[in-house]
């Protein structure tokens, strides 16, 4: 193979007794779009750091275009054309686009004086190479994540990148922006620049990757041409479990038809308007829309975080007034926020304390002191019910993986015994095995008669788990599918992105 760019062979790396990488091979050809997939802790980050020269492998070799790397420092990899774009993008928010793009170039040139003219030219050239037009005098803090990503790619280009490694590149941008990113990656490919996507998530990468390497527990499970894989098979290889996606079926005859939650003509200036929908017992209603479509704002209003200007909210047929989250909870509404780390979890507190926080008053004895044995029983009960992987509920919440943290947040809300449970992005940043477990938990709740609302921008997640789908765009509901089986993922995404005409007035 003459066109091999990078060849990593038998890479092993151990950190304090834990084998992070075990005899891993990775080969990337010139201009190849490769994807490295693995759950959290599977060794992906270690592997890219070894390639980038940040960690030195215990054994194994890395060669680039036939030359063996010593693996001693990052500069060697950079000079060979390897550029890593970390998830945080490593940009300077306070500096201009021009300076951010050309800063490495400036440092490489080893001069002590700044040549602003050259800096601007470098930035312009890098942007035009990928056909982007961004104001180079704008400060980076004023740009969207997608634009920032483009800045990071342009910066990599100034370093004569031949392989760009992108860590979780698609996790913080909308599906429209993902498409745009892919078009850039294809342009890079034309110029012979290879891309390695590193992700824990299935989905988008299928569209573009040629080959997919799968890591689990530090071992390479295999390299597959992407057309040989589908989500189910990939999920099977990754988790070793046969995860079957079977759409949720709502058995309408088993439950009362009185809506648990009914929203009528809800509106809030500048954010959303004409919002009408119902959630009946046993239903899982999906709300899909791009970031900024107003979906989060609507449910935040229902939960009393931000009051609507007009419209009504009814619970079990009775109109209720919800002025704050406490009102919402009293009426049996629970809400799992999008960002569990900042909004849903007290991460240094114990798992148990996190679970009982919503119902702590139930454990007050007559003396107004806490009934600790009762509290402990409750904590253990939930840890068991949701199979949260921890030796004891006394461990801090941040000792858990993302999926288990999410289960803690779910347990916390279930402890309030809600009638309606609204989950905003319930599986964001969670690896595939846990994702499946969380979906199962949600379905179980619905089967027992709870009304569920799931918000997500993953069409597949919505279609697999919801019996009814609402599409939001620009603050209004543009389409509702009473039966989710009436639509497939591609069509749904087209509607979300407004690529197709829909009969409904927007």
């Amino acid at each position, binding site marked *: 193979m003459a066109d091999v760019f990078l060849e990593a062979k038998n890479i092993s790396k151990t950190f304090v007794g834990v084998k992070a990488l075990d005899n891993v091979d990775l080969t990337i050809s010139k201009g190849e779009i490769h994807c490295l997939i693995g759950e959290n802790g599977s060794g992906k980050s270690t592997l890219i750091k070894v390639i980038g020269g940040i960690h030195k492998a215990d054994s194994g070799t890395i060669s680039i275009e036939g030359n063996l790397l010593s693996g001693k420092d990052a500069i060697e990899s950079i000079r060979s054309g390897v550029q890593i774009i*970390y998830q945080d993008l490593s*940009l300077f928010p306070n500096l201009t686009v021009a300076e951010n793009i050309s800063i*490495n170039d400036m440092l490489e040139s080893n001069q002590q004086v700044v040549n602003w003219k050259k800096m601007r030219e470098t930035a312009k050239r890098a942007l035009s190479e990928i056909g982007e037009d961004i104001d180079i005098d704008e400060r980076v803090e004023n740009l969207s994540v997608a634009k920032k990503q483009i800045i990071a790619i342009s910066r990599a280009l100034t370093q004569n990148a031949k392989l760009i490694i992108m860590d979780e590149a698609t996790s913080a941008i909308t599906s429209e922006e993902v498409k745009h990113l892919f078009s850039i990656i294809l342009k890079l490919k034309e110029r012979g620049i290879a891309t390695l996507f590193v992700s824990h998530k299935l989905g988008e990468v299928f569209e573009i990757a040629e080959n997919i390497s799968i890591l689990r527990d530090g071992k390479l499970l295999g390299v597959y041409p992407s057309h040989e894989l589908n989500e189910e098979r990939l999920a099977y290889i990754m988790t070793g479990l046969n995860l079957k996606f079977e759409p949720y079926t709502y058995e309408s005859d088993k439950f009362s038809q009185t809506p648990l939650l009914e929203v009528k003509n809800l509106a809030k200036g500048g*954010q959303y308007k004409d919002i009408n929908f119902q959630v009946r017992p046993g239903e899982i209603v999906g709300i899909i829309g791009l970031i900024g479509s107003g979906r989060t704002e609507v449910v935040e209003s229902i939960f009393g975080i931000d009051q609507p200007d007009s419209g009504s909210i009814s619970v079990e047929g009775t109109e209720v007034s919800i002025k704050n989250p406490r009102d919402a909870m009293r009426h049996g509404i629970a809400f799992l926020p999008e960002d569990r780390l900042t909004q849903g979890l007290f991460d240094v507190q114990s798992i148990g304390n996190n679970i009982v926080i919503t119902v702590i008053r139930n454990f007050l004895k007559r003396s107004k002191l806490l009934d600790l044995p009762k509290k402990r029983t409750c904590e253990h009960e939930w840890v068991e019910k949701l199979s949260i992987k921890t030796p004891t509920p006394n461990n801090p919440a941040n000792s858990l993986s993302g999926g288990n943290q999410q289960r803690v947040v779910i347990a916390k809300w279930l402890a309030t015994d809600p009638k309606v449970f609204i989950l905003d992005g319930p599986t964001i940043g969670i690896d595939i095995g846990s994702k499946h477990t969380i979906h199962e938990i949600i379905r179980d709740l619905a089967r027992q008669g709870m009304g569920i609302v799931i918000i997500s921008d993953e069409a597949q997640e919505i279609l697999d788990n919801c019996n009814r789908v609402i599409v939001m765009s620009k603050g209004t509901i543009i389409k509702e599918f009473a039966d989710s089986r009436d639509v497939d993922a591609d069509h749904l995404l087209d509607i979300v992105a407004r690529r197709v005409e829909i009969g409904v007035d927007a």
Partner: protein
Amino acid sequence: MNLKRIFKRSETFVLLIIIAFSVFVTIKNPAFLTLDNLFDLLRSSSGTAILGIGIFLVLISGGVDVSSTTIAIVTQYVSITLMIRSGIDSMWFLFGLSAFIGIVLGAINAFFVSLLKVPTLIVTLGTSSLYHGIMLEFFGTRSVNIGSLPESVKSFGKINILTLTRADGSTYGLSIFFVILIALLIITYVILKYTVIGRSVYAIGGNLEAAKRAGFNTRKTHFFVYTYAGLLAGIMGVIHLSLIRYSNPNYIVGTELGVIAAVVLGGARISGGTGTLTGTMLGIILITILEKNLIMMGLSTYWQQLFIGVVLILGVSITYLQAKFQQSGKTIIATEEE
């Protein structure tokens, strides 16, 4: 999004307040808007402004320096004491000695900040007490009064580079202090804008981790920032001495919050990375004219302290407020474009 723009240009705000305030003061006291008074203001506030440059630099790098006033008084008192003992009557000697001590003390700050990674506020709080304590214990507590000051120090403070005559025949002029300030402003501007070390100050203030990854030697940057701030404090110490012709080891200390407030008022973000020298100077000007005119406005000088507190709290809140405005200002519903 106009609000955002306005917030971004705090310099404009400060300038407008300065103009409005000057008009107000001039109406009450026509002597305010004279060249005589202006030159006097420049002479007495140049030292503070020099200290402000150093504090500005530290803020840009993402730190907070509360030790610069202590460094100024320590360099002043120690170097004048040594100068008198040695009998060398030369301003060059005094400036050199003072600058040297300032650089050494700044380097000690840098050591704690960059190598031990202690938060800058804690480091400088600690070292300021340390430096002051060492000086009081080992160099004495007695003031140096005008009688024992070397001749060169006394005459240096009287040098004017431009001399004008008042109606009554007496003269006034533009002090050499102002020339030193302008020179330092230009040097600092050029360093910050056109040198790699200057850009690295902005870089570490914006994103320290990214600066390391990009290949900046962030230790070097920290040493540069704190030694430069120390050097400026040393220069300020000498200027202050030749201005008031008296050295009391307890002077200057305690005014640091006022200078920090002025710099923050001028638009330097307390979270680092953002700010301009122009803004810094405008902030210093505003705080200075407020201070000098409070009594004339019929207010006690305690208002100054109150005002500084308000500015600092607002300055700290502003980063938070900006983020908040950006969020609540979002408009989702499309205007009639489709």
